[in-house]
């Protein structure tokens, strides 16, 4: 997905590379909803209005990364810091049970898994490219 969208960005603007997948994605999502008619699992509970705003947050993300990619951080720094932010906030959200999702306390093993995967990412991001 990143490769396809990144290829679009290489030819057009970053805005275009985010706009097109949202457009084609919306069309496919409508087709899937019509074809599968997934059951509303929540029954009578109505989702809060803010639950519909995930797409806005995603749009802001694209703008932030397109801004930082062209600074001294470059793509590798942007990705590494982005992964760090994603992991830290995910852990925080689990511990606090934010946004109506189940609360979870990470165990020692979860932190070990985290350390191993972060280490692997850092090796790939900063050493994996051509020398």
């Amino acid at each position: 997905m990143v490769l396809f969208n990144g290829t679009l960005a290489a030819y057009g603007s970053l805005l275009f590379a985010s706009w097109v997948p949202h457009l084609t994605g919306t069309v496919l999502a409508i087709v899937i909803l019509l074809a599968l008619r997934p059951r509303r699992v929540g029954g009578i509970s109505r989702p809060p209005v803010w639950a519909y705003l995930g797409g806005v947050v995603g749009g802001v993300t694209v703008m932030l990364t397109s801004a930082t990619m062209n600074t001294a951080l470059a793509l590798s720094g942007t990705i590494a810091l982005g992964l760090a932010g994603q992991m830290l906030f995910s852990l925080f959200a689990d511990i606090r049970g934010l946004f109506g999702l189940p609360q979870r306390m990470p165990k020692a093993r979860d932190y070990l898994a985290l350390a191993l995967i972060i280490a692997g990412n850092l090796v790939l991001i900063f050493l994996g490219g051509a020398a």
Partner: protein
Amino acid sequence: MIGFAALALLAGVLVSLSRQINGRLALSTSAWESSFWNHIVGLGFITLIAIVFGGLFAGAPQDAPWWAYLGGPIGVVFIAAGSWLIARIGAAQTALLIIAGQMISGVVIDIVMGMAGNAFARIAGVALILAGMWVARSAKD
């Protein structure tokens, strides 16, 4: 520089935030419906930004290969999967496994497309990530 680093960090926080919001919507609806709302609301938002700031069709997007347009359909499955997972295995596990899958498939795509790279670093990086996934998987009790 510190400011840009903070923005990059914030972008990561927003990725996680967006997944949690979509996950909450999926709790009351379904993963597919949550993915639909994520895309159509995002489309509206980006269209608004494009109208205000312009530049949507800058460059030569018509020259991009046809397969570059497959990102959207893949994204629909990606958002639906994330919305489904986060309520079941938690935000941290979901993020960890998505990141692991991204990095490993990134290495595979680089190799398939013939991108130059340090073979030792690639092997070491993928091995570390696989070890981490194995530890995360066995954490269930």
